[in-house]
Structures are given as C-alpha cells and as structure tokens.
C-alpha cells in the first residue's frame, strides 16, 4: 500500500522500504544527516501509514476504561494519553495514543497495520450504542519535530495551534471533518503532530517543506525515526512488545492506572506481586561492535536475555540497544555483553533515555 504523499516522497528522492504493508520512505538525504537535522534544526515525517480510529457515543469513555491502561474518565478534554491495550494475560496488543475530544468522542492512533485488530478489539468490548470507526486511510499524520519545528509550523497552521502544549491537542476544522494538532512526537525533541484529512495533508506537507527551507528543515524517513526514538529509549511495536510482553516488563507501568477495571488488570497485579519478570533495559556498548535485534545478551558469558532493538547511535557514536534481561541483571551499571557474530561484545546497563 502507499500513503497519499507517496509520489511527493519519490520526487524528493526517497528510498522506500516495506513497513507494515506500506511502501514508506526509509531515507531521503541519508539517515545520519536526517537524524542530525531533527536534533539540531527540524524535520517533517510522513507517518500516514499509522492508524486512525474514532470512538463515539454515550459510552465511549466506558469503552476506553475497559480496554486500555490509562483512566480515560480522569483525562481532560483536549488532552492526549499514551497507553497500551492488553490481552487477558496482560501482554500488550499495541501501544497507542488517544485524544479526548469529549466524554463521548475520542480519536485513537494505534500503530500502522493494527487498525483492523484494534477496531475489532474495541468493537468486541463496546456497548451497542458506541461507534468504532476506522478512518485510517482518510487521514494523514505529519510529525514536525526539532528545536525549530514549531517556528516553521506556525507559518503554516492557523491560529496558535503550533503552540499546542505537550500532550495537549488543538482541534482543526477542515471543511466538515475534524483534525487536530497535538503536542506529541516520537523523537524526544520539541514538536507537534498534525492529523488532517488526506487532501489537507498534501497541502500542509508541501508548505512546511517550503516554509522550513530557511531554517534547514528536511523530510525525514523511517530510518532516522528509528535512531531518534532509540536514543530516547522509546518502545517500537514489533520489537519491545514482540513475543508477548506486559507493560511491567516493557517499562510502561506508568501508562497504567490501577483505579479502573481493564482487560489484563488481574494478570498485571499477579505479575507485580511475583516480581520475577524480565525487565527491559538500555545497554550502551563499550565495544565497537553494533548490537542488533535478536542478538543474545550475555551475563558472565551465559545467555541471559535478548536485544529487541539496536543501532549505532548517531549522536553518541556508540552502539546502543534495548533488550530484556532477568531482574538480577537489570540494575544500571551492570556489566553484560551482547553476542555479535559469536563474539561477546562488552556493554553496560545504562539509564534511559540514552541522551
């Protein structure tokens, strides 16, 4: 599948890679250059392959209370909440952000390729009067990130929407349709995400590129998106949740409120009491070798865990990884190793974020 802006990316010289069934730009000018652009100037990402759902009806809040970790009844209108949807056994189905337009109306953004699964998930738990609508292919999602991101966005988006604070959102009316600008992002830099119907997305993307030239804003692909999020220790579905992981294991307990009943709650409470579960940690390489997804993590030469994401950090210029280890090896400062092509490459458990 292609995102609406596909041809534009091709014109910009993007190299494409398949991701969740979509042809997505992995890079334009180059991963290292794009990474640096976001950390020092600004970049625009087209993440329209991600999913978009509306949940509407008098029991919309009840549905969210039942199906995701945070307590939607305590989230204020105009606020975004990052959390997870879990199975009965507490393992994560997907991580997502929901945007509370009102007690009867939520916009939900799950990961790319997860729209059908999440729509079914919500529908299975919904009251008959709750509507769960998959509008994934009708919306563009553009992330503008970096120290100069808001400055550029303010030249393109009406009013003060570009100033929308962190984890808040400002509604945009695009003809008869609703969109929004949110103070969210996946890079660890200041910035916003713009969620608008496709035609408007085409216009906004082009204008942001144009108006961003003077500050050195560049288009950014999924390659740099990955190195940027990994430097901040953010999870990526398909990596940190693969094979069935709970939010306790993945370091996402902060996305759980225990003051409501949700699918997976009992399993989490049991796991918390037991406390022997694997922990997601960050490791920084002391060796030149680069850790990659799937490489074993060794403790005293014996296999103890596994790398879930790894790369050469463009900013730190050393290898960094996220991976699971048993609790005894999880303390910051623990000396471990990553097995790279049969060699034990020294690393140390590091506090997240890496920078």
């Amino acid at each position, binding site marked *: 599948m292609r995102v609406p802006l596909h041809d534009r990316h091709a014109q910009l010289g993007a190299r494409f890679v398949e991701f969740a069934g979509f042809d997505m730009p*992995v890079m334009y000018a180059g*991963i290292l250059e794009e990474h640096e652009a976001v950390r020092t100037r600004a970049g625009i990402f087209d993440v329209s392959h991600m999913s978009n759902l509306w949940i509407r009806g008098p029991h919309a809040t009840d549905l969210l209370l039942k199906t995701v970790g945070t307590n939607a009844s305590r989230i204020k209108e105009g606020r975004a909440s990052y959390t997870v949807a879990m199975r009965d056994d507490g393992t994560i189905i997907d991580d997502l952000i929901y945007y509370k337009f009102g007690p009867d109306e939520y916009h939900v953004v799950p990961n790319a390729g997860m729209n059908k699964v999440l729509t079914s998930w919500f529908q299975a738990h919904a009251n008959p009067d709750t509507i769960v609508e998959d509008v994934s292919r009708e919306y563009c999602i553009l992330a503008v990130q970096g120290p100069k991101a808001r400055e550029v966005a303010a030249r393109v988006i009406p009013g003060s929407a570009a100033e929308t604070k962190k984890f808040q959102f400002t509604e945009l009316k695009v003809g008869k349709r609703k969109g929004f600008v949110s103070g969210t992002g996946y890079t660890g830099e200041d910035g916003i995400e713009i969620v608008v119907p496709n035609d408007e997305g085409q216009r906004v993307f082009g204008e942001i590129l144009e108006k961003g030239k003077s500050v050195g804003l560049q288009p950014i692909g999924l*390659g740099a998106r*990955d*190195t940027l999020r990994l430097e901040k220790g953010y999870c990526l579905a398909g990596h940190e949740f693969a094979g069935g992981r709970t939010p306790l294991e993945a370091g996402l307990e902060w996305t759980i409120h225990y003051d409501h009943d949700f699918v997976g709650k009992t399993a989490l409470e049991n796991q918390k009491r037991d406390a022997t579960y694997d922990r997601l940690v960050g490791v920084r390489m002391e060796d030149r070798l*680069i850790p*990659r997804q799937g490489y074993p993590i060794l403790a005293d030469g014996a296999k103890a865990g596994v790398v879930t994401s790894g790369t*050469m950090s463009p900013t730190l210029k050393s290898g960094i990884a996220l991976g699971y280890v048993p609790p005894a090896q999880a303390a910051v400062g623990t000396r471990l190793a990553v097995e790279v092509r049969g060699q034990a490459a020294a690393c140390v458990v590091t506090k997240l974020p890496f920078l």
Partner: protein
Amino acid sequence: MASKIPAELKYSESHEWIRVEGDVATIGITDFAQHSLTDVVFVELPKKGTKLVKGKAFGVVESVKSVSELFAPVSGEVTDVNDGLSKTPEKINDDPYGAGWMLRVKLSAKDDVKVLLNAAKYKATIGE
C-alpha cells in the same frame, strides 16, 4: 544512477573490487555497494596473516540499519589492513576505490583473478 566503475579494476558479483599489482591485490567494495548501503558506520576486517578463501565471507560492513557480509574475491594471505576505517568508516562512502580500501592480499592462486568480472561485465550485472 551511474556508479563509478574504474576500468582498470576487476569485480566480483558480490560487489567487491580488486586492484592487482604483481601478486598483491587491494580489495574494497564498489561505488554501487556503498550507495546501496548508505552511511557506513562500522566495518569488521580480518587481521594480518589471515588466509582468505575465495567466495567465503571475510568480514562485515554495517550501515545504520543493516549488516552485510564481505566476500573474498580471491584466495590469499592478508598482508595489510586499512585500520583507519575503524575510526572513519565513512571513507568507504566518500572514496570507495581510494581511501576506502579495505585489505591487501598476497594472491595464492593467480588464476582466481581471471574469472572475475571486468568493468563492462560488472556494469551489466548491476543493470546500468
């Protein structure tokens, strides 16, 4: 995209180039290869004295996102390694046929070179 394919070199199908001077060969990866990889961030090369076997993997070159094996275009003993590449692997992108050279090898079988591709044949294999 037209890659550089110097006429005086020989090439393998796995995108290594080789410059032969007497019975010493210098080896690296082609412009096409470095362009496909994009930014090289790491290269792992064998030590001096290692015996390379034609067709077998002798090391690894990594970009931000990928790990690729390097295959020996000829058999022989490693006499020199470009150690500078561990500090500045990007030389492989900037100057794949010059400062990005990887190894020098003393050929153990001169005939190995004969079966390699010339510039025209390599150009055809990469579809340019």
